[in-house]
């Protein structure tokens, strides 16, 4: 059975039981009083019966006296024994008040039966004169009996006067009691009903409010219900649902946020691609042309030019191939080498490129991670300096993974510019930011790219490649 059902049953059983008990009690009292008053009535009737039977005895005796017969004698004897029985029964009527009277009454009956018997005997013996005398005596005694019956009855009335008064009072008091009990039950039931309905409606109200909150989108307000029945279960289930939804929504929000970032980055990438496409008319044609040029230069004995063209071609191929996928670090390093070879051809002695690699280069990284940074170092760091400088690429294993450093000893970046680079406001200067975002997206971590610079001293860009992250994807 459920708790609420239990409550309802309990309330109903309580009401029924209370009413039942009261009904039983009232019935009991009434019945008792009824019994008592019946008892009194029975006394009256018994007393009255004595008088009646005595009269019947006298009548019967008279018949026997006037017209003696065996039948009438028989009848009279039967009546006699009836009166004798009554006389015995009279003893049950005795109480403290009427002891004297009852004794007298019994003796009178004795007298009348004795006399009657004498009459019968005398009639039997044909002594009619004496029989008549005795009969007169019996009649007189019978009269005394009926007189005493009246006296006894009136005395009984007096004795039971108090009883009847009490009976009437009891019934009045019972009425009053019934009224009060009714009032009490009403109040108790009202109170119980109030408490009961409250115990149901309050959690329902709370649930309703919680549901409203949820409907209005307030998923952060806890559902609190103080109850121990099904509603509590409902509430806790509801609360559980709320928490789940809340978590789900949080997750969704986060994902949406991420998605947005991703979208943004894709746009950035697209932009850079567009930019590079704008820069290159037909890359494949150019690639092929560059290869042809390289062969021609080689055949012409310009080996240096030929090598340069091979580097340019390699750079171009890499560019075409690996736009938005992860590549092993060594490929990226190789591309940087080619790029630097081209730049060195351009800057001649002004640009020095050194590498210091002490790590496993099979680690995958997003393509074009290093190239924009090296390009920045060359173009913004070394190029403005008249004497040129050195660009260093250091890769080493650190406890967290790999540390890639791109250092130049160029003119450096001032603080204001540094700010702008890290959080670009416009389309310009997005190279650094682009790399940073792509790294974050790729590894799912932030702070992977750091830049330190001081004016005139050069710039150091540090990339942290986390260990084992995305290892499976590689």
């Amino acid at each position: 059975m459920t708790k609420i059902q239990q409550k309802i049953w309990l309330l109903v059983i309580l009401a029924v039981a209370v009413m039942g008990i009261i009904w039983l009690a009232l019935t009991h009292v009434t019945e008792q009083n009824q019994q008592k008053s019946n008892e009194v009535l029975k006394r009256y009737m018994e007393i009255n019966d004595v008088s009646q039977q005595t009269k019947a005895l006298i009548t019967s005796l008279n018949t026997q006296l006037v017209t003696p017969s065996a039948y009438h004698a028989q009848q009279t004897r039967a009546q006699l024994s009836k009166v004798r029985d009554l006389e015995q029964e009279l003893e049950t009527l005795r109480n403290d008040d009427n002891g004297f009277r009852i004794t007298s009454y019994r003796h009178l009956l004795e007298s009348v039966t004795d006399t009657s018997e004498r009459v019968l005997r005398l009639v039997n013996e044909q002594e009619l004169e004496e029989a008549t005398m005795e009969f007169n005596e019996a009649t007189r005694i019978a009269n005394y009996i009926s007189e005493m019956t009246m006296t006894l009855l009136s005395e009984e009335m007096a004795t039971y006067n108090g009883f009847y008064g009490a009976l009437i009072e009891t019934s009045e008091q019972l009425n009053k009691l019934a009224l009060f009990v009714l009032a009490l039950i009403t109040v108790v039931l009202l109170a119980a009903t109030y408490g009961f309905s409250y115990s149901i409606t309050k959690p329902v109200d709370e649930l309703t409010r919680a549901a409203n909150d949820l409907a209005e989108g307030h998923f952060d307000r806890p559902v609190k219900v103080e109850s121990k029945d099904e509603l509590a279960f409902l509430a806790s289930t509801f609360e559980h649902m709320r928490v789940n939804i809340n978590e789900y929504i949080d997750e969704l929000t986060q994902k949406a946020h991420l998605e947005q970032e991703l979208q943004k980055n894709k746009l950035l990438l697209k932009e850079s691609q567009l930019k590079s496409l704008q820069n290159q008319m037909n890359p494949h044609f150019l690639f092929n042309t560059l290869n042809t040029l390289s062969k021609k230069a080689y055949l012409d004995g310009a080996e240096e030019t030929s090598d340069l063209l091979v580097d340019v071609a390699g750079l171009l191929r890499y560019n075409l191939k690996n736009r938005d996928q992860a590549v092993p670090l060594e490929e990226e390093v190789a591309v940087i080498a080619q790029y630097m070879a081209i730049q060195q051809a351009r800057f001649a002695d002004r640009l020095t490129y050194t590498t210091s690699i002490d790590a496993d280069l099979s680690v995958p990284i997003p393509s074009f991670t290093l190239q924009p940074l090296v390009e920045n170092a060359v173009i913004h760091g070394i190029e403005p300096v008249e004497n040129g400088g050195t660009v260093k690429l250091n890769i080493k294993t650190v406890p967290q993974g790999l540390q890639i450093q791109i250092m130049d000893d160029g003119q450096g970046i001032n603080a204001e510019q540094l700010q702008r680079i890290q959080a670009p406001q416009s389309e310009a200067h997005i190279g650094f930011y682009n790399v940073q975002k792509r790294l974050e997206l790729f590894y799912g971590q932030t702070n992977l790219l750091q830049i330190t610079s001081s004016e005139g001293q050069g710039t150091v860009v540090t990339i942290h490649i986390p260990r084992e992250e995305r290892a499976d994807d590689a």
Partner: protein
Amino acid sequence: MNKQLLIIFGLLIVFFSVLVGRAVYQVMDATPQLPKIAKDTNTLHIALITQELDTPFWDRVAQGAKQEAKKQGVAFEVTGAYAFDDSAFLDAMELAIHSKVDGILIQGLDNPRFKELAQVKAAYYGIPIITIANDVPVKDTLRKTYIGTDQVAAGQALGKHALQTLKKGDEVVVLMDEAKPYFERQRLKGLKRAFHRQGIEVIVRTTGHEQQQLVDSTQQLLNEHPTSDAFIMLNANYTNTVVQEISKRMRLSNFQLYTFDDGVDAEALLQSKKINALVTQQPEKMGQQGVKRLVDWLNGNEMPLKVAGYFTSFEIEEVGS
């Protein structure tokens, strides 16, 4: 939950609980109890039968008897008739006899049916009869004994008292019932004994006890003996009427008035100085003695009873004494 509502509910519940509790108590309290059925204890039943129920004198007799009956632990009842209704009185007596009471204390009535009842019926059932206050001759009734004032002595004492104021040659009217009951005859006997050879003329007149008869008798007496010096009412119940009739015609102080205390107004008349003296008896003592002797006799403690009777004392009460 609404705190106010809770408090109201609580108060109402307490209030009605108290009312219900009180009502339950009242119902319990009011529940009628039947008198308990008693056992026949086989105690002696004694009846006191008088012709003058509810008169001061007999109430006092009954009171004395009742007290003694209670002391002795016997059942006791007063029955009889009101105002000398002989028939009702004798019916009561017969009823008592047929009811087989163990003993009867009775105001003696000088009447044939009384004698028959006492002599035949009571004797048939073996019920002892003791006369009280007013005696009847023992030979007619077979009464066991008499308890009360020695009426002869009382009459004599009253006569002697009257002599204190009477002189030789004075006329004394004695009023007695026309039935000449035994106790009045006794009193007269005493009176006559007192007035014997005192040179007092005693005129004895009988009267019926009906009011009109009494008035007539008194008027006749006053007509016939206007110069008489004293009136002695042997039956105390006549006193009031006689006093009224005399005072209608002449000054009460013309006469000396004497009577006994077993009448309705005797004491009051003495207090208001309308009569000169009366014989006061001891009714309580009579009742008490009657019950005591009867019970003693029934229990076999005192046997036989003195046939002459047991006399209780009396005294003469004068105006102002």
